[in-house]
């Protein structure tokens, strides 16, 4: 066992309002400069949708992340370094997203508005920030926001293609959710493994993954290696850039910009202790649907005296251990199992996790018997609009049971709290069925609902 500390994030999608404040504050702080126009270290996607860059989840196309070779060992889906050099692929990378897969950044000829008198009212027209030419807008970083253009995009969502539930893009069955995305700061980062220059690294003290701007040679294999498409290429500096988990702030004890400015109050930051010696083994779990649990097995109980002793021995500081003991990430991911990693089947062991959202009852279930049964006031998990299959495709490599357990837990917590706040009796046995006690349900409620600043961010 070799204990490392990793800083991680949980996003409670059940509270996400899809407002994109995180994207804007992040962009203004980090990437509103030449060469970085198209970069959104943090972006928000409407699901179902194709995302940014388009269809990033289609790894049969982009070949990001890891796969297991015939011996059951990890290898980069795009091929290993030697392979690339041997095949001359280092000069030719067919798996890279192109600018149009992201979008061509544009601006407007605003100065026309101050110009001389014209026949008709002047207007500011879109111009490419790359070429300076007028441009017909056809794509953007959030083109399919709120199911916009769904006749074209609904079926193009790789997750929709995977699920078996029969859901059509019609008004009656409409559903949507938001997925804010940033670099996953993976335990098993394929970008780091892809870099031919050794410019990418995972920091020993907190696990933040960075691109050394001095060593980067612009090979761009990190871009292919990352299945989340969260490493970008700065076309002015010719270097790769990516989310830094705001390390200049984290080092000062402040949360990331995206987390602090999240007005939905959905983001939590905390420290996790994990066994760095078992990462490869865990990532080599052959069954995609077991990878989530496999990753869970890496995390170590920060309150276990043996773990604490070993952590000290492995050079983890007292402060880090205390932070890990109070970690909201540990609480939600490991103890309550309501948060899940994004696409664990990429075998990257990502460290930005998500609480799945509840959703409204489907039309053909509504109004059913609920008047007689006060507990029917909330929709049942199987009656909700967002198919469990869809969430499982995003968050558990297809493990439906894990998703359903989390949703049951959220729903039961609501019922329990409703009974309490309106002075009604509640059968505590029901809490036990979802692994809750009155005390843990209350505490979970406080973490999710009251969510004070110092409870969200434990750094």
């Amino acid at each position, binding site marked *: 066992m070799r204990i490392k500390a990793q800083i991680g994030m949980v996003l409670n999608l059940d*509270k996400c*309002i*899809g*407002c994109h*404040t995180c994207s*804007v*504050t992040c962009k*203004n702080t*980090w990437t509103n400069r030449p060469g970085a126009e198209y970069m959104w270290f943090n972006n928000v996607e409407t699901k179902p949708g194709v995302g940014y860059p388009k269809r990033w989840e289609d790894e049969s196309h982009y070949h990001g992340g890891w796969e297991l070779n015939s011996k059951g060992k990890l290898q980069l889906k795009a091929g290993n370094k030697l392979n690339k050099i041997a095949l001359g692929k280092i000069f030719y990378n067919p798996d890279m997203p192109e600018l149009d897969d992201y979008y061509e950044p*544009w601006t*407007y000829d605003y100065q*026309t*508005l101050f*110009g001389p*008198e*014209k*026949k*008709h*009212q*002047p*207007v*500011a*027209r879109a111009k490419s920030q790359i070429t300076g030419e007028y441009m017909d*807008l056809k794509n*953007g970083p*959030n*083109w399919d926001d*709120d*199911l*916009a*253009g*769904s*006749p074209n995009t609904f079926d193009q969502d790789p997750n929709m293609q995977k699920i078996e539930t029969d859901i059509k893009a019609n*008004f009656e069955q*409409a*559903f949507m959710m*938001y997925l804010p995305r940033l670099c996953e700061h993976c335990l098993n980062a394929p970008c780091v493994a892809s870099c031919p220059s*050794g410019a990418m*690294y995972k920091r020993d003290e907190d696990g933040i993954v960075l691109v*050394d*701007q001095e060593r980067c040679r612009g090979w761009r294999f990190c871009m292919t290696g990352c299945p989340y498409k969260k490493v970008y290429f700065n076309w002015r500096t010719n270097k790769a850039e990516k989310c*830094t988990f705001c*390390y*200049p702030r984290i080092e000062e004890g402040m949360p990331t910009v995206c987390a*602090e*400015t*999240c*007005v939905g*109050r959905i983001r939590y930051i905390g420290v996790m202790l994990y066994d*760095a*010696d078992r*990462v490869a083994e865990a990532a080599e779990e052959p069954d995609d649907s077991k990878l989530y649990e496999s990753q869970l097995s890496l995390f170590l109980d920060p309150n276990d005296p043996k773990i604490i002793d070993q952590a000290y021995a492995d050079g983890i500081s007292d402060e880090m251990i205390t932070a890990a003991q109070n970690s909201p990430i540990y609480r939600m991911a490991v103890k309550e199992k309501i948060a899940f990693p994004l696409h664990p089947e990429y075998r990257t062991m990502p460290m930005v996790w998500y609480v799945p959202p509840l959703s*409204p009852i489907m039309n053909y279930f509504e*109004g059913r018997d609920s008047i007689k049964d006060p507990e029917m*006031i909330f929709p049942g998990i199987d009656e909700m609009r967002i198919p469990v299959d869809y969430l499982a495709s995003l968050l558990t490599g297809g493990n439906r049971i894990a998703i359903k357990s989390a949703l049951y837990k959220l729903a039961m917590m609501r019922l*329990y709290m*409703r009974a309490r*706040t*309106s002075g009604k009796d509640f059968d505590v046995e029901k809490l036990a069925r979802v692994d809750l006690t009155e005390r843990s349900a209350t505490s979970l409620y406080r973490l999710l*609902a009251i969510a004070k600043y110092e409870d969200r961010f434990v750094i």
Partner: protein
Amino acid sequence: MKSRFFKQVEKFNGSFTQLEENNRRWEKLYKQRWAHDKVVRTTHGVNCTGSCSWNVYVKQGIITWEHQATDYPSCGPNMPEFEPRGCPRGASFSWYEYSPVRIKYPYIRGKLWQLWTEAKKNTGDPVAAWASIVEDKEKTKYYKSARGHGGLVRVHWNEALELISTMLIYTLKKYGPDRIAGFSPIPAMSMISYASGARFLSLLGSEMLSFYDWYADLPPASPQVWGEQTDVPESSDWYNSQYIMMWGSNVPLTRTPDAHFMTEARYHGAKIVAVSPDYAENVKFADNWLAPHPGTDAALAQGMTHVILNEYYQKRQEPQFVNYAKQFTDLPFLVFLDPSAANDSHFTSGRFVRISDLNNDEVANAEWKPVVWDQNTQQIVVPNGTVGQRWEDNRQWNLTLKDDAGNKIDPELSVGADSENVVVDFPVFDQQGNGVLPRHLPVRSITLANGQQKLVTTVYDLMMSQYGIKRTADDDLAAQGYDDAASIYSPAWQEAVTGVKQSLVVQIACEFAQNAIDTGGKSMVIMGAGINHWFNSDMNYRTIINMLLLCGCEGVSGGGWAHYVGQEKLRPAEGWATIAFANDWQPGGARQQNGTSFFYFASDQWKYDELDNRALKSPVKKVKHSYDHPADYNQMAIRLGWLPGYPEFDRNSLSFTEQYNTTDIATISKKVVSELKSGDLHFAAEDPDAPQNQPKAMFVWRSNLFASSGKGQEYFMKHLLGAENGLLAKSNDNFKPTQMKWNDQTVEGKLDLLVSLDFRMVTTPLYADVVLPAATWYEKEDLSSTDMHPFIHPFNAAVSPLWESKSDWQTFAAIARKFSTMAAKYMPEPVYDLKTQPLGHDSKAEISQPLGEIKDWKYGEIEPIPGKTMPSLSLVKRDYTQVYNKYVALGPHADGNVGATGYSYSVKPEYAELRDRNSVWDDGINADCPKLDQDKKVAEAVLLLSSATNGHVAQRAWADAEAKTGRKLQDISAGRAEEKITFKAITTEPREAIPTPVFSSSKHDGDRYSPFTLNIERLVPFRTLTGRQQFYLDHETFQEYGEELATYKPTLPPTVMGPKDTKITPDANELTLRYMTPHGKWNIHTMYYDNLEMLTLFRGGPNVWLSPLDADKIGIKDNDWLELYNRNGVVTARAVVSHRMPEGSMYMYHAQDMEIQEPLSIITGNRGGSHNAPTQIHIKPTQMVGGYAQLSYGFNYYGPIGNQRDLYVNVRKLKKVNWNED
């Protein structure tokens, strides 16, 4: 490789991972990016009512970015906090600072500048030069028709100031001050900036135009039901709710910083229901989604009310509900029955019974005291709390259940279901028109003072009958069950209207009511523009408010209505109003005009109005004062003193003293009355197209009026501005008003000068004649507050105003200085301004016109008595040479009392303190007056003079409220009596406002703000006729339109093109869709719409959303260019096709301005308009009623709303995208 070999490398994870010791000095790169020199607390002003505290980061004198402040005072250990308030729009504001749309210098329209310099040279005198331009038709056309086409030229500040001042001098002398108007919306979010122009124009005697009603954000239901403009819970109070319906309010999108209180409330067990015609963002959080057809919300609410009445009032009498109804609503009040106009043997409901009907004794304000039946004495009594007692001297006006003599009473809700029974006719309305609904009604016979026998009933009985609640076994006219679709207002009936399943309506209604029982009223409806911008918005709102009242939810923390659209809560109200309307120099001297009427007449929309009111009236009631054309009601409203009418008379208001050769107001009043009667003098509104009656100049600041809120944009462009436009309608000369003059000539370009203060080049400055560069929200000091939270936020300058920009306060100071200097030459002597004033709410004038019966002096039914049967008249002395000196000093009248909502209290100690804090002027008219020369000093004065920000003032305010109501109230703010919230204090940390009787919450000590708790918990009456929350409105005009009780009314009939309008070449692939403009996600009105970050995040230009089902009908694909048109105008935009949209409706999210990516229209050949091009307003007669208790005028309180939702467009593909860059 060699160097690497010698470095320390440690392998682990089965040799899969290696630890290297590398130099990480490069990491300073991003650390330098993060480094900054200072952080300044400020916020974003106007357009958004969020009022969020932001930290702006400055590096080497450059504003870099902004993040939300997180240091709000806590809501307590068991609640979520307000941090971090903000949204993506606000987060992108810093883009504007150095952007290419920034207005850096003053500009004047090139063609006007050319005429002006020539004329000055020719005449040698600026005023003569101005006259030579504006009185010359060709010259005015020359520069007015160039509006909007570019060609603005940069000038020096002094040159711009001279032109503006010259125009003012000329216009004042020739036409009068009321020909000049100012428009600036919602003061709360940058109140000093609003106050700047308002103060200047008020000192001139020019009118400020209201905005809340004009935006159709004002819910007229609120004045109607509560006598309150709008009072709502702060967003944190949502968290105290256990049942939240979001009804026509897309909370995550329009209340972004507040939405989390809703998402978090779910975790303590609150059920969430979303009522929305589309799968909107808020539906994501709902447990149930109800999708009624657009505009049918009242029917849905009535279906639910039917269930609530039946389950909780009829099948069982829920004591909690019944007790609430008896004490806090008008349900027990007695109403006369009149013969039905539809059927000889039937009845219809009439007006409230008053004590004056029953008693010949001398009772004070007897006609203003409605009555109830007391169960204790089995007699009719006047309960305390009515408007009659409110305006009685030495009366303790409150809601204790006592009669006029102080005896305890028990009001009877019903005359008894099995008592004498008649058939009553209710008016009903549907897409086919109006109809008659007969129901059984229990009645009681009473003897009037004149000996006559009359049938009466209670409001409760009327409601039960209206809804068809079956109260006796043999009632064949009542609903025979929830599934009785033939019975109007039943759940089954509503399903046919709304499309929402009846079983769901029954379920939600029961849950809603049961939750109120279980939690003591914590059922809440968050409502907004989705149901408020309709012609019949008051019906939508009143039907929903009825549900809340019947379940006792109003005045309960976590319960009641929560209306959020265009709302404001300017917390330090009294100090602000004193300064903004120059009451410190001339109390009551300001003109305040309701915006909708002003624009309706000024933009000539009245001449195109196609809405014949005959179809909208009740078939069961015929009234005497009835008109077909909506404009006629407005004329009646002006002459009877219900609504203001500025411009005022067809004569200069400064000319009367000279003409009558007296300054005695009594003499002048007599002569004016006699001239009005004889027809020698007219109200200007009677002939708004006459040259002397037109508005001549307009100042617009903090606003993009001509795109964002110019409903009927093309009418504005054509008639107000004389600019290129896309108006396809023709004026409607076969449907003319009878009460005003029809001018066959088309008047184009009424405004001689449009002045715009702005920091970004958008439509309004593009069309303005003078553009003045404004400081941004990061460059000045100001104040902001909102009803979403209890804090007062400061604006602070992160950098000084950039380029040549100035704060609005400094700009109007500069105009005032130049103007005063010129006035010394051109208008050296004081003048006397004859000012009319409508009968105002919260003043004794609200009991001027009794019994809700209209008496019109024009037809000799009553004498014209100023301030009683017509507007009041006053004479205001104006010294135009002193405008600047007054503007920059807090005048002597502030060394006395301030007040609001009927309360008044001294601020003398504060005035003295301000002398020391702000220092005083040395000599002249403002000697010894505190200085208001700097923005920050104005802010300090506002904070010190107001009860919400000064604990001493709050105590005095509560003391006055105690004296008037006889209730103990001072304890509410006692804990904060010592606090003075200064500008510095709120810059250091957000501070919560102090509770004050100016608003209706009694919450304190950390409890969340909750409206009407003062009324319910402390028994302070509502400011209505009955002193209670009113289900019933008995004014004649409400009876005429069948709106005594709330009822479903359909949306206005579809009119795309009128028969006489411009003929459009048909297109085979064309579709007619409902056209709606809900608030958008990527902009707040037009603010941020031009912002590159927001444009990048969604589709980069004008767009409209529609359903794939509609798109397929005419082959529209996502991102196709479309052209949408109706008689009002044309807009070009790209299609967004999405299955979250219902069939038959199109959204063009508000407010997509026309200067970004807007191609030419094929139909008109001109530039497509903004989202407002296809809009037009329709004014509603009931919203013009005045002089009658809560139905009395107040600025932004009552008046017709500028609704723009009942509209349709034709949609076709744009055949060719032509930008025309010539």
